[in-house]
Structures are given as structure tokens and as C-alpha cells.
């Protein structure tokens, strides 16, 4: 066998091995050491230039942290569910926080103008907060209880039922605490 044939065959085998490796992974299931631990604190500037927002100051409320980007298709997919959740929980002890992930502020603002949503939006230069949260890709959503502990992490687009289940169960904790 000439070396050229060997190279071709090895390439084919490597390719098949790569696909086989893919089979052993579940793209939506990634264990996070954060679940059950206090959420990494952050203080970030708002996308629209408002005063900075710190996670510390949101204690006592259910906090939904959603990492997103305007270039991300799955984010567009989940956006209507976020809008609905935001409208539903507006008057309650729930604070929704969007964190823009690897995107320009202009694009993010344009996206929000098009798709709506009036919850807090923060910019995360150099992805510091995203790294602290262990974000692999967008969208990822973290549900944080009133004591500042990460209760659940969701990878990929959220749905109405995920949002309401998580938020409702955490809201009970708010009730217990007061």
C-alpha cells in the first residue's frame, strides 16, 4: 500500500472516530458544579447605559440570568417564552437579567428593539461573568434562588414550562423566607 492510500484510510477512520465520539455526548446535558452553589457575584453595566447592577443587590428575589446573543438562532427561538414569562411575573419577586454574550452592544440593542423585552440587560465585556458562570454557548439560563444559590441551569432554548416550573418553585422559597 502506498503512503497516499494509508493517509486516505487513516483520514476516513479518524473521521468515523470523531463521529463515534459525538455519539457519546449529549449536547444538551452538561453537568455544572454551580448548581447548588452560590452564584458567582457580578456587577455589570446596563446595555442602555443605566446604573450598574450587582447580583448582591438582588437578594431576596428569584433571579433568572439568561446569557444570549443577537447572532444566536436558539436565542430567537426562546425569546417569545422569555417575553411571556417577563409579562407574567412582572409584579412578583422575580428579576430577569439578560447578559449579552460575545456580541456588540449595537447589535444587541437592535435585536432587543426588534424582538422586545423590557427586563434588565447587562453587557459583559471580555465575557468575565460568562466565564465565571461556566457558559459553554448561548443560550444558557441560570435560575437563582432568593438566597443567591443557583438552583438550576438550562442549556439551550428555554420553554414556557421550564421557566414557570423553575420560577414558581423558587418563588415558594421567597414566601418561606419572609
Amino acid at each position, binding site marked *: 500500500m502506498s503512503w497516499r*492510500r494509508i493517509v*486516505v*484510510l487513516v483520514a*476516513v477512520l479518524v*473521521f*468515523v472516530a*470523531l*463521529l*463515534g*465520539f*459525538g*455519539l457519546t*455526548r*449529549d*449536547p*444538551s446535558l*452538561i453537568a455544572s458544579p454551580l448548581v447548588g452553589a452560590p452564584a458567582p457575584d457580578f456587577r455589570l453595566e446596563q446595555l442602555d447605559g443605566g446604573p450598574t447592577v450587582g447580583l448582591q443587590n438582588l437578594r431576596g428575589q428569584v433571579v433568572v440570568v439568561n446569557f444570549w*446573543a443577537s*447572532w*444566536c*438562532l436558539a436565542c*430567537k*427561538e426562546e425569546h*417569545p*417564552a422569555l*417575553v*411571556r414569562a417577563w*409579562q407574567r411575573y412582572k409584579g412578583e419577586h422575580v428579576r430577569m437579567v439578560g447578559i449579552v454574550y460575545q456580541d456588540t452592544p449595537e447589535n444587541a440593542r437592535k435585536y432587543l*428593539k*426588534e*424582538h*422586545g423585552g423590557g427586563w434588565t440587560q447587562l453587557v459583559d465585556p471580555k465575557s468575565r461573568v460568562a466565564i465565571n458562570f461556566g457558559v*459553554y*454557548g*448561548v443560550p444558557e439560563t441560570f435560575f437563582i434562588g432568593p438566597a443567591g444559590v443557583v438552583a438550576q441551569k438550562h442549556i*439551550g432554548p428555554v*420553554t*414556557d*414550562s421550564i421557566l414557570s416550573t423553575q420560577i414558581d418553585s423558587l418563588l415558594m422559597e421567597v414566601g418561606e423566607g419572609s
Partner: protein
Amino acid sequence: MTGMLGYSALVLALGTAVYGAVASVVAVRREMPGLAASGRNAALVVFVLATVAVAAMEYALLTNDFSVSYAAQVGSRATPRFITVISLWAALEGSILFWFWVLALYTALVAWLYRNKHREQLPYVLATMLATASFFLIVLLGPSNPFHRVWPVPADGPGPNPLLQNHPLMAVHPPAQYLGYVGFTVPFAFAVAALITGRTDAWWVHAVRRWTLAAWIFLTISIVAGGWWAYEVLGWGGYWGWDPVENASLMPWLTATAFLHSVMVQERREMLRGWNVSLIVSTFVLTILGTFLTRSGVLSSVHAFSNSLIGPLFLGFVAVVLLFSTALLLWRTPLLKKTGSLDSVLSREAAFLVANLLFVVLTFTVLLGTLFPLVAEAAWGVKVSVGAPFFNQMTVPFLAGVVFLMGVGPALPWRRTSGRGLLVRFATPALMGTVLGVVAALLRAHGFWPLLTIALAGFAATVMGREVWKGVGVGVSRGLGPGRALARLVTGNRRRYGGYVVHTGVLVIAVAVAASWNFKHEVEATVAPGRSVDVAGYTLQLDQLYGQQQPYRFSVVGDVSLWRNGAPVGRLDPKLNYYPTRQEPVPTPSVRTSPTEDVFLDLLAFEQDGSSATFKVVVTPMIMWLWVGAYIMVLGTLIAVWPARKKKLARAIVREETEVVA
């Protein structure tokens, strides 16, 4: 009972398919014509059995026989009848059954149509196709058995995925996709036969031209219908998002498109033997790979329906096909050596070659982007997602190159031409393209790539138009009426002018993509009934918001009147549908289409008390022309595959050969 019948048919089909494949190979090796005929008959029997299985499944679906697992999974008593019929492809097991049926259909057609032809090669063709069918049968009998017996029998089922219930295009997109995907098995099987028998000359290329064109146009229809469906159902107002499954259908389309062009070079100039075989093998591998990637959960995709055992089975099949074809190609390399050579870079075959390179580079780019998350995780252990910006940036220049070549190709003669003649030929089209670009800019189109695409499309259209004009002129000078002259011209060389028509469709789509991708307006607004919102010259007024109970779902409807410059132009009624089996509502956007632009309205959310509703409005120019372009492509393909009388074809070839330097 029905389940037993369907399952038995599949078991018998597997036995018959394996027998047919073995018998065919033995027959040709030992020269036993009787056994070869038996192999052909096996192909026909497999098709009959496949039809019995599909009929049993349809019967189970239509009679709400929930003792059959697939019917219990996707059926429901309340689902409208038409949707029940097309539920055959609403979930994994049913789609694989349907895939197998389409494959059996193609195999039977090949066995029947070539019963007296290609005696040396046909058995290998059939063996390849029957072996592929056996793989799907193993999947159907094992991990993805749709005829599983359910006990106790449920009283009712959940109904098919609401996203699929929502739109009539679900009756078009999946069947076209399977007819396209599975159709590439035919040219692949011929290529395998060509390699095994050592007949790598143009015979197999002639044999598969129509099959490839048919599979290709079905895949084209499917891609466009899928985009159309996404646009009308998914509620984000776009038609293409570089989702892995979209990429999976685009990649074989690209390689097949390359193949359709490069075979012409092999037919005329005896070049590119190895290239053509490789292209068709790649096309087939990409169809299986695409199915594997999107259906096994390796990549996350909107289309993934995961199943634990399907993944490894498909991976095994991908590996077998890849190794088998690579080994065949390596073994036959000596037969695939260069036979012809390029006379000049200023020739039609050179244009075809460059176009081929563009298509292959595009395929690699899309493959890289699709697989990169997997590579990154394997190599560096990190999860990444590759988004639309990568694909747009990487592919747009190549796509513009393809549009440019559609203008260059037809103007170049085979073999060679002079550079001077070329400049003269291209002067007018280049001028026309520039004029079109300037007009577009005056219409407030902007940006380098959109304007370039529009200008190049104008250039290419002018080149083709002039070719047709010249041809008609010749007919008219011989005393024919212009209509007759055109008909004579087209029927004289259907392949060529069919190709021009297909190209015209592509140009229309290219311009529509450039316009719709870059110049859309999106606004989101919350309005109370009686109030209105202004977008891009339109006024949308929410007249009322009401609930509507239907047998199988509850809908909330926004009744919206649409105004332009103070005059009413229509009504829109976007809905949010609540299905009993799903927690999340499924939107049905409402679209007003016109030749210049679409107004797309999606109901995102509403207040429970009816005091306000949140809408998303998207105004996109020229969307309609995407679908029109696809119709034109279908028309062109029909012209190209229509059988021409042999003599005429020969004359056409002679004529083209003589017009070498015009």
C-alpha cells in the same frame, strides 16, 4: 392484526432484499442469467412488501389503531384526516419506514427499466441498492420498529407534533426531501457498479443523468419548501438559519450540483472520471451523514429526534459506506487517471471546473462549520456553537462567484476562445449588470455584497438572454415566427436551454436572498385593541383579540387590519395555538405577500384579560421571488429531463462542436 401484517411484510422484505443482493452478485460472477433475473424480481418483490407495510401503517393511522406503537405515538382521534395521512413522516419510525419505501420504489424502477440493459453492471447496481435497503430494514425491525404492539391499547393518542400539523407544506417538504435524499442512491449504485466492473467511461454518467437531475430537483424543492415552511410557521420571520439539518440537506445538494455540471465535461471531453465518481460518492455519503448527524443527537438541532440505538447503527452504516467507497476508489485509481486535458482556461469546461471547485469549497465550509462544535469538544474539550455570522461571512463570496460563473459559462465555447473576443462578448452584459446595480442602489439597496450580487445576476441574465436571442434570430432569419423559432431552439437542445431556465430561477432566488437578507424591517410592539403600530410605511391596527375553540386545539387570534398610506390593503390574523398535549403555545404567523414585499405578523404574547397583545412585525422585500425562483427551477429541470429524440440530440452536439469560435 395490522401491526403483525406490517411487521411480517418488513421481515419478508429483509429476507428478499438480502437474497436479491447476494443472488445478483453471484449471478454476474458465475454468468447465470436466470439468477440475475431472480435478483431483479427480488427488487420488485421488496417494493411490493414495502408498499404492504406502508399501507398497513396508513390503515392503522386512519382507523386510530393505537395498538400499533407508531399510531399511538403520533395519532389522535381529533386530528384531521389529511394530517393523519401525512403523519407517516411526523416522527422517526414513520420517516424511516417512508424512507425505505422510497428506496424500494427507486430500486424496483431501476430493476424494471434496465431489465434488458447494462447486463454486466445492473446486478451490482441492484446489489448496492438492496444492501442499502437491508440496512434500513434492520433499523426498522430493530430499534425503530413502528409496528410495536402496545398493550393495554390507549384510548387516544397525543397527535402529531403541532409544528407539523400547522402547515400544508408539511405534505410537500418531507416527501420531496426523501425523494431527493434517497434518489441519490441510484447514481451512487451506478458509480459502485462502474468501479467494480472497471467500466469508468461515460456509460454510467449517461445512465444516471436523469436520475441525478430528478433527485436534485426534489432536494431543491425540499430545501425551498423547508425554508418556506420555517418562514410561515416558526415565527422568527426568516427562512434560513444555518441549522445543522439545513446544512445537512444543503451539502449533498452542493455536491450534486457540482456533479451535474462536471458530468458534461466528462461526456464531451472524457475528463474528470475520478472526480465525478468521487462527487457522487460524496453526495450519497453526505445524505447518510446528514441523517446521522441530525437524527442521532450528535449535534443539537430542531430536527433531532433522539433514539439510543439508531445513532450507533447509522454510524456503523456511515463507516461501512465510507470505507467501502474509499477502498473501491483507491483500488480503481489506475482506471480513473486523467484521460483528457484542458485546452485553455478560456473555455466552457474551465468555467465548469471553477464552478465545481466553488461548490466543493462551499461544501467543505458548511461541513466544517457544522462539525466544528464536535471537533472542538473532541480536541480541546470545549463546547462552542457556530452561528450564522460564520456561515454568512464564509459562503457569501463563493455564492457571488457562482452567480458570476452562470454568466461566464454560457458565453464561453467549448475548448478555447480568444481573450479579445471575450472582452467584446462581455461588454454589454457587464454594462447591463452595472446598470441594474445602480438602479438597485437608487432604490435604496446598499452594502457591497447585496449590490454585487444584484449586478452579477444582471450580468448573467444578459449573457443568457443574448444567447437565446441569437438562437431565435437564426430561426427567424430562416423564415420562422419568433415563437416557433424559440420552440425549435429549446427542443433542439433541451439540456442546454433547460439549464438556462434553471439558472434563471437561481438568479431570481439569488436576488431575492440578497434583498430579503439585508433590507428587512423588524419591529416588536405591544398594542391594545383599537390601537395601531407603524412599520416601514404600513399601519397595523389591532381590531380585536379573541379565542377560538377548534376540535383539536384552542387558538387565540389577533384580528389585525393592514393599511398602507391611509388605504386598507388587507387583514392579518396571527394565532397562538394551544394543543392539549403541549404546554407551550405554537404560533401561526400571518403573512401578506406581494411582489415587492411581505408583511409578516406573529402574535407573541397577550394579556389574559385581552387588554393588549404583543406582536412581531417583519417587512421583508422580495420574499415571494424565492418561491417563484424555485418554480422556475422546476420548469427548467422538466425541460432538461424531457426525452429528446436521439437524432436531434446528436445534431445538437454536432452544432455546438462546430460553433467553437463564434
